[in-house]
């Protein structure tokens, strides 16, 4: 046995990856349901995706507040009793609000499902948005905001989004203290009526599904007003900032700076998107990337540095993000640009490219392990108006894209002058 010689491997790119197909049906009211039945554990996840994100709000913060308050009171149960109804069975009912969509989700042992669906139905038909709950929310939201504004990472995150998309855009908007003060239960009730009671909802259900799932879902959600209307996500123009470079002093005692370098990038429907996913990995997408190898593993400027594409539906951005020692922030930025230049001017070696391909395929194989993960892929495909060809084409790009094509893409996109550059100290 010679320890210097690596054991033989099967190249991950030789794997045939398959995305387990979903089952599809609709409820009596036309609500679409996607299901994946898989997994050894007796657990289930239900995600109710409403078209009720901040694209639809007329006042800042109303979409998020309405989504949050779904669990804060119906005419039959107060917030405590709603929480108790889920907690008693060890279940989790979460709310999350995004740009186009807002989600109400349930995670539970499958055996308890029938106790919990009626509670969700109640939240979706009979929420009352008590004034007292709003006041507590406002007070605590103000405190959270004050606390977050002391964190350079938080400030950097919201500023870079506002440069990329403009503050008037749902992707670039951020909350100020006065926006929290201005929230009202009246506005919530209106939003609830328009986008939940009479909104549009898509259901994603995965895990170990009970045999009568369809009947249970129909009983509780088949009469919801959802899907009565055609809701169309408004297209809102982005308004990117003119000025490209920013240095912001947030905390006089800071020992690190939060660096964000970002450029607008098209959405998943653009032919370059799947190809750039490979280039991004090579550049800064994983631990073995160029940025990480140089800036962390060689220079020790940071604990971690990554690049990624924003997960937005309409318009995206390519972002490089790191926290670096205050005295090495400028040196870090210089190295980021150097790595862009190398990608533009020098073809990646086949060894390194094979590593990236294998790493990405191996990662995908691991990511598809388990019903929730499989459904997450499908959800992404459905909500972005794509089909399964997107999944297989992406894999094909990972396996076959050439070094020349990657260099061309670097020459198309990776120019420092296209990027906003921000450091928050």
């Amino acid at each position, binding site marked *: 046995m010679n*320890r210097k010689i*690596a*054991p*033989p*491997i*099967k190249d*991950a790119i030789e*794997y045939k990856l398959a995305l387990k197909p979903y089952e599809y049906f609709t409820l009596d009211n036309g609500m679409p349901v996607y299901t994946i039945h898989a*997994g*050894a*554990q007796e*657990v289930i996840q239900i995600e109710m995706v409403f078209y009720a994100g901040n694209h639809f709000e007329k006042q800042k913060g109303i979409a998020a507040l309405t989504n949050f308050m779904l*669990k804060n009171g119906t005419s039959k149960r107060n917030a*405590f009793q709603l929480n*108790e109804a*889920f*907690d*008693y*069975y*060890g279940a989790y009912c979460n709310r999350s609000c995004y740009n186009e969509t807002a989600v109400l989700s349930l995670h*539970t*042992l499958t055996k308890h499902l029938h106790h919990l669906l009626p509670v969700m139905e109640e939240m979706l038909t009979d929420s009352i948005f008590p004034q007292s709950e709003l006041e*507590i929310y406002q*007070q*605590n939201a103000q*405190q*959270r905001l*004050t*606390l977050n*504004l*002391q*964190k350079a990472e938080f400030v950097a995150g919201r500023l870079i989004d506002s440069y990329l998309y403009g503050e008037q855009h749902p992707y670039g908007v951020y909350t100020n203290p006065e926006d929290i003060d201005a929230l009202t239960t009246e506005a919530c009730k209106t939003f609830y009526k328009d986008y939940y009671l009479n909104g549009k909802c898509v259901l994603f259900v995965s895990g170990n599904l009970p045999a009568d799932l369809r009947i249970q879902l129909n009983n509780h959600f088949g009469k919801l007003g959802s899907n009565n209307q055609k809701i169309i996500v408004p297209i809102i123009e982005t308004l990117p900032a003119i000025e490209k470079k920013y240095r912001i002093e947030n905390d006089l005692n800071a*020992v*690190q700076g939060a660096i964000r370098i970002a450029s607008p990038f098209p959405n998943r429907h653009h032919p370059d998107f799947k190809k750039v996913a490979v280039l991004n990995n090579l550049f800064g997408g*994983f*631990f*073995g990337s160029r940025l990480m190898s140089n800036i*962390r*593993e*060689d*220079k*020790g*400027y*940071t*604990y971690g540095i990554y690049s990624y594409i924003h997960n937005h539906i309409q318009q995206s951005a390519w972002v490089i993000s790191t*926290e*670096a*020692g205050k005295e090495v922030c400028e040196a870090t930025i210089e190295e980021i640009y150097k790595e862009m230049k190398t990608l533009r001017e020098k073809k990646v070696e086949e060894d390194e490219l*094979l*590593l990236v391909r*294998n*790493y990405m*395929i*191996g*990662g995908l*194989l*691991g990511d598809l*392990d*388990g019903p*929730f993960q499989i459904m997450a892929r499908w959800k992404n495909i459905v909500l972005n108006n794509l089909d399964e060809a997107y999944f297989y084409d992406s894999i094909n790009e990972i396996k076959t894209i050439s070094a020349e094509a990657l260099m061309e893409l670097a020459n198309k996109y990776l120019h420092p002058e296209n990027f906003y550059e921000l450091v928050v100290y």
Partner: protein
Amino acid sequence: MIQFKSFTLQNGLRVLIHEDKSTPMAVVNVLYDVGARDEDPAKTGFAHLFEHLMFGGSKNIPVYDEPLQVAGGENNAFTTNDLTNYYCQLPAENIETALWLESDRMLSLAFSKKSLEVQRKVVCEEFKEHYINKPYGDVWHKLRALIYTTHPYKWMTIGASLQHIEEATIEDVKGFFNKHYTPSNAILVIAGNVETEKTIQLVEKWFGTIPSGEKYNRQLPQEPPQLAPRHLEIKSNVPVDALYKCWHIYARTDNRYYAADLITDILGGGGSSRLFQALVKEKQLFSSIDCYHFGSTDAGLLTIEGKLAKGVNIKEGEKALNIELNKLQQEGISAAELEKVKNKTESAMAFEDMSVMNRAASIAMYELLGDANLMNTELSRYHAVTVEEIIEQSRIIFTENNCSTMYYLSNNQ
């Protein structure tokens, strides 16, 4: 029921194999029985720094990450006060790559000076990012020093000071490796789409020839019982006042651990928990409040931490909190409330066990506690806890003399 086969190699390495044919992946998890508690008080943060150095090349392999990535794998590691755990996941056909990599770094590190230099800097940036450049970042630094007078839990995993990390030498690195990174101080778990018999052969091949080294004999000074309340008041540049109260609880293998664990859920587990309902929702004295413990191997801590609502005096918040603790001690809990937190535990375990990576880590951790099969009996231990035990433990734990309190006050108000 999690099935596995366990055996010990001649050099003392404990090995556990768990088959799961439903996944295309395999996980290799190597746990070393060394954590921050085993450090020299003058060289803290070393176990964690060492974790970084384990990726800086081994005797026969210049870099760890690349061959693993080529094999479609990914990996990470973490260090706690008790242990250091390394794990990688890769397509099951390529499992030998992971065994080759893990066995070589168990055999010997490369002890590269460059790696030490760079990782010292990286860890210093990690220290700054998480513990200095964040409001309340130094809370546990201060709390540990207040609560523990004797036990090495008195410093954080990241280390007591940046200086200790900056001063680490290559000799320190070698000494630490020889003392702790031996087969007899390690547990190897292999999980996923593997054949047990074939895997045993591979393990013998790659790990069997590593010299056993000396078994590290842990003799830590134990924390004496706390006999009087402790207080600390800090003023700092944070936006709101925060209250921290910590009580000593039990070791992880103590029978009373389960009641203490359930008490944290009764008080602080989610939207229907007692403290959230009484203090955030009804009295509105706190904007957030949590109750938790770290599940540490040696006698641990039960902590309640809360951020005060605007304009509320911290003493008023503390008083109201004490009333809630008192209520638990005096009035106890209903059978339904106990059932609720047991259900929560059952559900949390089921979700955790979904991933083969989590299962591998759990097997290793329970084996470290004495027997991997504890993983399968754990739920019944929780189910056995009675209402009476909850009351009894709440009376024993929540006493003034057992408590350390920190006021972390805003100097902006």
